[in-house]
């Protein structure tokens, strides 16, 4: 098949058939013409749009439609969020979340720690003592009971006072003093002993974050949930429950 020659041949015989479309459009009449003109019009609109788009692509358009959010007064404009990590959102958000799920915690399922795991038996003469093998919190005014009467030993090496608490929204971590152990999910015994394992809810002192309630009172204690195994890591990592 001589394809290119076939195309060239009528051109050689009759020359360039210019203005073909206009000839057709002029001669048509009736319903056919209406349909054809409608089709032409649609094509023309489409062509105009593409041309405009191409034009716009080359020039820079200033987007002055929407004003950006986060309006700040003039004295804060040149400052890049003064210690943003310390600026926390306030009462309304807290109230909303409090209302939603008061005791919603992050780690709903926590592996229960059995007694043999947490407590190691000490067999000394008649007294049965058990030593806690996990990290615990004892509090400021703690003094040991007289050795004859104490049943649980909490070694000093496993006592911690501070926890690394992360604020979930700001993604900033603070080292805050622990106020107490609220609930250890494995057993109420561990809660009273102050044993801290993964999933335990502890109360931390947040006064340094400067949170204020709507009544004007300063918040100084909040709950946090422990997210690591402190006995393996040597530190307590927790997430603040806002």
């Amino acid at each position, binding site marked *: 098949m001589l394809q290119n020659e076939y195309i060239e041949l009528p051109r050689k015989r009759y020359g360039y058939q210019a203005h073909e479309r206009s000839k057709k459009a002029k001669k048509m009449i009736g319903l056919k013409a209406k349909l054809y003109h409608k089709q032409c019009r649609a094509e023309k609109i489409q062509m105009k749009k593409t041309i405009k788009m191409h034009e716009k692509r080359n020039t820079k358009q200033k987007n002055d439609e929407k004003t950006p959010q986060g*309006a700040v*007064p*003039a004295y804060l404009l*040149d400052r890049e969020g003064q210690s943003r990590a310390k*600026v926390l959102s306030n009462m*309304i958000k807290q109230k909303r979340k409090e209302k939603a799920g008061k005791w919603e915690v992050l780690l709903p399922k926590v592996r229960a720690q059995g007694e043999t795991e947490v407590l190691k038996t000490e067999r000394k003469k008649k007294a049965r003592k058990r030593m806690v093998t996990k990290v615990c919190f004892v509090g400021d005014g703690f003094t040991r009971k007289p050795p004859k009467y104490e049943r649980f030993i909490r070694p000093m090496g496993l006592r911690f006072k501070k926890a690394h608490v992360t604020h979930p929204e700001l993604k900033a971590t603070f080292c805050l003093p622990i106020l107490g152990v609220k609930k250890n999910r494995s057993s109420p015994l561990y809660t009273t002993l102050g044993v801290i394992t993964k999933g335990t809810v502890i109360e931390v002192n947040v006064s340094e974050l400067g949170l*204020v309630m709507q009544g004007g009172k300063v918040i100084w204690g909040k709950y946090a949930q422990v997210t690591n195994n402190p006995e393996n890591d040597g530190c307590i990592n927790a997430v603040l429950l806002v």
Partner: protein
Amino acid sequence: MAAAVAEEAAVPDVQRLLVQFQDEGGQLLGSPFDVPVDITPDRLQLVCNALLAQEDPLPLAFFVQDAEIVSSLGKTLESQAVETEKVLDIIYQPQAVFRVRAVTRCTSSLEGHSEAVISVAFSPTGKYLASGSGDTTVRFWDLSTETPHFTCKGHRHWVLSISWSPDGKKLASGCKNGQILLWDPSTGKQVGRTLTGHSKWITGLSWEPLHVNPECRYVASSSKDGTVRIWDTTAGRCERILTGHTQSVTCLRWGGDGLLYSASQDRTVKVWRAHDGVLCRTLQGHGHWVNTMALSTDYALRTGAFEPAEASVNPQDLQGSLQELKERALSRYNLVRGQGPERLVSGSDDFTLFLWSPAEDKKPLTRMTGHQALINQVLFSPDSRIVASASFDKSIKLWDGRTGKYLASLRGHVAAVYQIAWSADSRLLVSGSSDSTLKVWDVKAQKLATDLPGHADEVYAIDWSPDGQRVASGGKDKCLRIWRR
């Protein structure tokens, strides 16, 4: 008066001292005379008022060598080593005749803005309240019913600063695009043309004082582009451009002596002559950005011809012809200014403040140190005796307005203090902070008077109305709160 003196003379065994009354400027009042050591401030007030020959007795405070006489002269002298042989100088200070009561409750929370409220200002008579916000509108609020009055649309970016003309008839507002618009508070419509010219955002606006021109024609604006422009509001064009700063101009004040003061991030304060725009002086000394400035006569310039002592429960517009207004404003200005020239305090990011006498000297009078974080705002009290500085270190410090000596620290906020405002009688101070509370402080006792919680988020702007009745505050939670007694 003679009876009182005779009474004092009748008690022979109390030690007696020679005292001489002196006013703050150093002028002597009367001649030295004898008083017993246990004389109380009330008696001293009687004596002093008699010497001053006033019709209405003025409340006065008495100071001996910077210590105030609270209970009796003897007690105050015990703490100081005073020679009883010499004549003792007692300095008397007239206090404001009227007394502003502390605001205690939030009477209304005005919603309406759809973005954070960035600037709040009462008109000089306290009749109108205007607020500018991040939603590009300026809103006027009706104070008697505490409801919205007008919403003025026209800006295309955040309204960063607003300023009332001293006669209360116009409001100028500047936005982040560098445009300035003028509004009429009684109709809520724009007056004149939009003033464009600045290339970056407006950081401050300041009107020409009323006692210089009672028509309130010229307004000056400072911008991040480092220039100060003086605009003619009736013609709607820029009259003069003052260039010289190399970085953003953060604060602007039009003084009452024909001088314009501008503070900038290039660590200098420049003093310009207002009528021809010539640079007079450059005040250098700060180590970091100069954030804020205050003039000793600020309050008098802001209120113009309005006298807060004559305020009524329903605020009225100023009455009188232009000439009368001018004279009244001038007499108020001279009263606050006192003998010497205007004093200027500048606060900076280098944690210090400087006290200057810019019309005379380019060296500072004192350097006021003590803050532990940057200083966001300084304000002179309306009687120009005390300077209050609000800082990001959560405290407000009070300094003597004449010498710059440290007086006291007001602690109580748990986050950065953003703005402060004085009451018209200089006895109370209100502060708004990033911790969403406002606190009212009693300046004489240097303690907290009332705590005003209520905002849900940071408080960006506060103002105390010149008639002393209301405090308005706006912040990030998009609502404007009005507080009353």
